[in-house]
């Protein structure tokens, strides 16, 4: 293997930039997490360690109804989103992958469009849809869930498709050669092989739903449909307490745990490289 020399100077220069970027990227968040455990009301001056903003009597994530409800609603939406987007997306991925025909290209494009549409456009489109067309559903939890499902669907499809491509048709063909009926080829050969991708895509759908902001805000109705993201946004303009850091930390912890779990599952069953490529969202 030849030693490559880069033209920007010694690798140290690049290393410096990379280190600088990583610090810039990560340190503010680490500090924000740290201050969630601050004993006082300040978000910038350390006043000692405490769990008060998580479990304290007043103003904490556990006891302040606004915070607690926001967290609850966020999780509710995420669960609904996963429950619907995953099977829908898996089906769409399978169908698309095996669809031979001219329409498949257009459907593929349709599927990819939500991924490249700016959120505000999606938010407005859905807002107008639920105000003008589906007035019966109106705004609120249902609308928020539907909105989230619509774009997480694409993530599921992309991830499952990737796995389908790498699995290839050999296994099913082998099963067919051995005389297995179609149903068995699907349920006993394909689906198990697909399982890690399904789990991974469910996790991605979950994480995407939890962190969504624009669409969720546009489709919200009253206080009961506030999510953590919306809370972060509205409280930030004023003088927030570390409770905001606390709820953001809880939110983050849930997301990371889900993703780590999914990553490990995927890696266990599908191999390291594939897992990494999914994690980096290679479309």
């Amino acid at each position, binding site marked *: 293997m030849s030693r490559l020399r880069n033209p920007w100077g010694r690798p140290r220069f690049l290393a410096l930039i990379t280190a600088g970027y990583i610090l810039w990227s990560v340190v503010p968040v680490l500090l924000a997490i740290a201050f969630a455990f601050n004993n006082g009301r300040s978000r910038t001056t350390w006043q000692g360690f405490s769990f008060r903003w998580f479990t304290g009597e007043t103003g904490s994530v556990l006891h302040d*109804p606004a915070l607690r409800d926001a967290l609850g609603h966020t999780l509710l939406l995420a669960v609904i989103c996963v429950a619907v987007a995953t099977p829908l997306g898996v089906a769409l991925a399978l169908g698309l992958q095996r669809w031979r025909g001219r329409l498949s290209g257009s459907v593929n494009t349709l599927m990819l469009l939500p991924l490249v549409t700016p959120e505000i456009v999606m938010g407005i489109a859905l807002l107008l849809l639920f*105000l003008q067309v589906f007035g019966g559903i*109106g*705004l609120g939890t249902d609308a928020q869930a539907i909105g989230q499902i619509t774009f997480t669907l694409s993530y599921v499809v992309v991830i499952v498709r990737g796995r389908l491509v790498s699995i290839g048709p050999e296994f099913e063909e082998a099963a067919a050669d051995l005389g297995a009926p179609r149903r068995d080829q699907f349920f006993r050969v394909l689906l198990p092989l697909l399982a890690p991708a399904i789990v991974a895509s469910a996790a991605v759908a979950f994480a995407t739903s939890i962190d969504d902001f624009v669409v969720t805000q546009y489709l919200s109705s*009253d*206080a*009961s449909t506030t999510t953590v993201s919306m809370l972060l946004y509205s409280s930030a*303009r004023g003088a927030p307490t570390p409770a905001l850091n606390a709820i953001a930390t809880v939110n983050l912890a849930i997301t990371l745990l889900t993703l780590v779990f999914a990553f490990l599952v995927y890696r266990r069953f599908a191999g390291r490289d594939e897992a990494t490529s999914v994690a980096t969202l290679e479309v």
Partner: protein
Amino acid sequence: MQKPTGPGGLPLPRTDNSVTWAITDENKPVKDGASAEPGPLRIYNYADYLDPATLKRFQKEFSTKIEVATYNSSDEAIAKLSSGAVDFDLIVGLSGSNIVDLIAHKLLLPLNHSYLPNLEKNVWPELADPFYDRGARYTIPYVVWMDGIGWRNDDVKENVAAMDVPWDIFWHAQAYRGKVGILDDRRDALSMPMQRDAMRKGIRPDLNSEDEDVVNKAESDLSELSSICNPKVTITDYQTLPEGKTVLHHSWSGDLLSAAFYYLPKGVKPDVLSFWGPDQNGVVQNDFFAIGRTSKRPVLAHEFINFMLDEKTAYANFVNFTGYTPPQKGIDAETLLKQGLIPKTLQEAVVRPDQFGANQELLQLSVTGQRFWDDAWSKFKAG
């Protein structure tokens, strides 16, 4: 001459043209003597505009729950409410600027005064039967306020109150660039340069003007500020002033008191904050409670309003948190000052009934008139 009409063709209330809103058969008030429904009571309000401790007390006394959803500006509230996609039990903080919107979009439930004994008992008579809603059929006054200037007297060197035209300070605020604020409300914000202009000329401005030229001039005056001091357009002065993030703000009077009562960081004294409001020709107004037409808990909502109209509750809400004067007969600005509750620098922030006469209110405009203001505002906002 045909009077200009508002949204939905409804009449526009003015001080010389009071309006009594009809109560229709399809929208009748709730019956007498019913008991309060179980909660949660869903309230739609500005952020930080109801004392949390007071809310807790209500929840305890009535064994119920309260959920508060917030809006950042009256414009946003009307947009959301009129979309018809949300419903609330209680709507707080809107005023005569939007009363016709609310009636036209059929958003309000007529009130049953048998549940509201405190109205006649405690509230200033002028506001208990206001010109924009004779008989208080749909609204009950919440608090009163005026538009003025709030500032940090330890940062701002000029003696704003002593200026000939104090509004001019904004146009000379280069030194405070980036730390200046304008209210994020198209009516209040655009009326400010109108007041300044009129003050310079010594005349009384028409803050409900439907003259396109007047509105456009106000917009271009306001836009001058962008290069002079690059103001932020927000309503969070009650937090940013005490924290020093802004030092000069176009403010609602109550914000300064709220800042002094509740939001000052430790060790900062309330007399670093100052407020000035014009004696006449400015904006002095009240906002109100209203009950949502589709509310499933109208009696509970009535109980809440009556609760807030109780003198002690209103006082606590005011002095412990919101800073906005409730129009209570028993609450006197002089007494508050004597008790030392309010620093001298903020005495103008307490509104008295006699101030209503010399000043004016920002009231609902006709649809075409509103369009001028809307266009001017989006021009200003575009930068």
